[in-house]
């Protein structure tokens, strides 16, 4: 669906926003585009949507080159810019009909297209309202409805949930999941839980380069520091420390005394599930156990690690 080869984009003043980036997206995939602010996500998306031209490299959407077949590419995709700009003086239905006309829908297709888009995005109740009077969440939905009014195969959504309240985020996520059955999606975000909740593959960018392009699980495995376990047993700290230190593959152990209970944090060298082994060890020592918990690494931590330890870029 999308094939990007050695894409480079230079801005005037010697800024290289995107630097030799290559990736591809298969039909039907939901791909999350991840990266800190200024990583080059929006620039890449704007190039895909035909708003900017690449400085170098080749970008193909459905086998069409975005520079040479710019108009055809724009016809076959739906794009939601980051700021979701809309004509505030138009009414919701009127705006969507205008956009459908621009996208060349015939009168009949326009009616069904606009109605379907409004229904999918929950806009039927506000279709007579002025866009300028809508809340941010509704405006975002109008933007998404605009992107899918001509029923494109490919949707490119730049930060679709930015600036929304938690309820609206949940609604937009649900909408995105609903859309995923019929469309190929490319969604950018710097909010990781967002990507975790909606996408099945991530492309991670930082400073104009692609760091990773993998499924979420792969990514977790690859960047995981190892399995982490916390447990609390009724014993003295030094005793616990001594007993558990003998476990194989253990990288680090920290034990703190908390009254009669010892609180231990264990870090293993590999990413497997060590709970059974640890529990066997505790059973053998005959301690009372009140907590045994394997901590999963969130994408958040992986991300911070990948993009350079939370430094501002």
């Amino acid at each position, binding site marked *: 669906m999308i094939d990007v080869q050695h894409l480079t984009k230079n801005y005037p003043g010697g800024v290289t926003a995107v630097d030799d980036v290559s990736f591809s997206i298969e039909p039907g995939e939901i791909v999350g585009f991840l990266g800190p602010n200024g990583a080059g996500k929006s620039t890449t998306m704007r190039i895909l949507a*035909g708003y900017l031209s690449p400085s170098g490299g080749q970008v193909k959407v459905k086998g069409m080159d975005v520079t040479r077949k710019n108009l055809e590419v724009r016809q076959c995709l739906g794009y939601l*810019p980051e700021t979701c*700009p809309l004509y505030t003086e138009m009414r919701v239905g009127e705006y969507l009909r205008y956009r459908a*006309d*621009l996208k060349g829908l015939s009168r009949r297709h326009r009616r069904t297209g606009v109605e379907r888009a409004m229904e999918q995005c929950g806009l039927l109740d506000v279709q007579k309202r002025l866009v300028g009077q809508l809340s941010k969440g509704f405006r975002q939905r109008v933007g998404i409805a605009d992107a899918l009014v001509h029923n494109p195969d490919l949707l490119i959504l730049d930060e679709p949930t930015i600036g929304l309240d938690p309820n609206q985020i949940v609604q937009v996520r649900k909408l995105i999941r609903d859309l995923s059955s019929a469309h190929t999606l490319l969604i950018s975000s710097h909010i990781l839980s967002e990507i975790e909740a909606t996408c099945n593959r991530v492309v991670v960018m930082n400073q104009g380069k692609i760091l990773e392009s993998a499924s979420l699980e792969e990514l977790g495995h690859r960047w995981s520091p190892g399995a982490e376990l916390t447990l609390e047993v009724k014993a003295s700290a030094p005793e616990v420390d001594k007993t558990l230190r003998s476990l194989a593959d253990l990288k680090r152990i920290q034990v703190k005394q908390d009254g009669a209970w010892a609180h231990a944090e264990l870090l293993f060298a590999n990413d497997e599930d060590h709970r059974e082994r640890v529990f066997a060890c505790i059973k053998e020592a005959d301690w009372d156990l009140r907590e045994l918990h394997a901590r999963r690494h969130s994408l958040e931590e992986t991300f911070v690690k990948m993009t350079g330890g939370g430094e501002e870029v």
Partner: protein
Amino acid sequence: MKRFFTLWKREVASYFVSPVAYILATLFLVVMGMGFWFLASVRLRTGATFYELLRGLYGGVAWLAVLMVVPVLSMRSFAEENRSGTLEMLLTAPVRDIEVVFSKFLGIFTVYVVMWLPTLAFYPLLQRVSEQPLPIDFGALAAAYVGVFLVGGFYLSIGIFCSSLTRNLIVASMSTFAVVTLLFLGGFLPAVSPVPQLREFTQPLSPVLHMMDYARGVIDTRSVVLYLSSTLLMLMITTRGLESRRWRA
């Protein structure tokens, strides 16, 4: 063609849903009406002809109105879309840049024409209040309007070009005003320049003289070609500028 019509419709509508068009049209009619009243009452009393009235109105007062109206009408065209970011929506829709530019021009030009229409009422009104019926030369009147639309169209295309260079409405309107006023004042060069070569060179280019001609009922094809081609040129430059955005920014 359908897309062009869609763009044109939205451009025209955007003026009439905002107060800008109404305020501007009111001011415009006040200026034109005052000018007309002044010319009619003073000149007709001193026995001036219909042609002198036309010359005063379209060769003189109309300039005031055009210089005032053009920058305000054209300033929003691209600067506003640029400022609010809607240009990104527009340019990622499957429409050609040239369609966008020409539809915006035609949209604004439509508003400009609509603004001029009420001034046609001056003449039946004049007929009604004057004691002796005034012979109206419809040919000369039509020529005067052709002139107003030709010159206005060219100036609007300059305004659209200026607007496409910035995201600031004030910068857009001020720069348009500067260019348009300069062109207008340059129109006096054939009369005031001390250098004979310059007088000769600027004579066929002077918009002031052209408007005088039109108001006399003379439609000189040279000036028609000049305005139509300059308008086209400005719009083409604007289109090129818009296309270059993709590379520059």
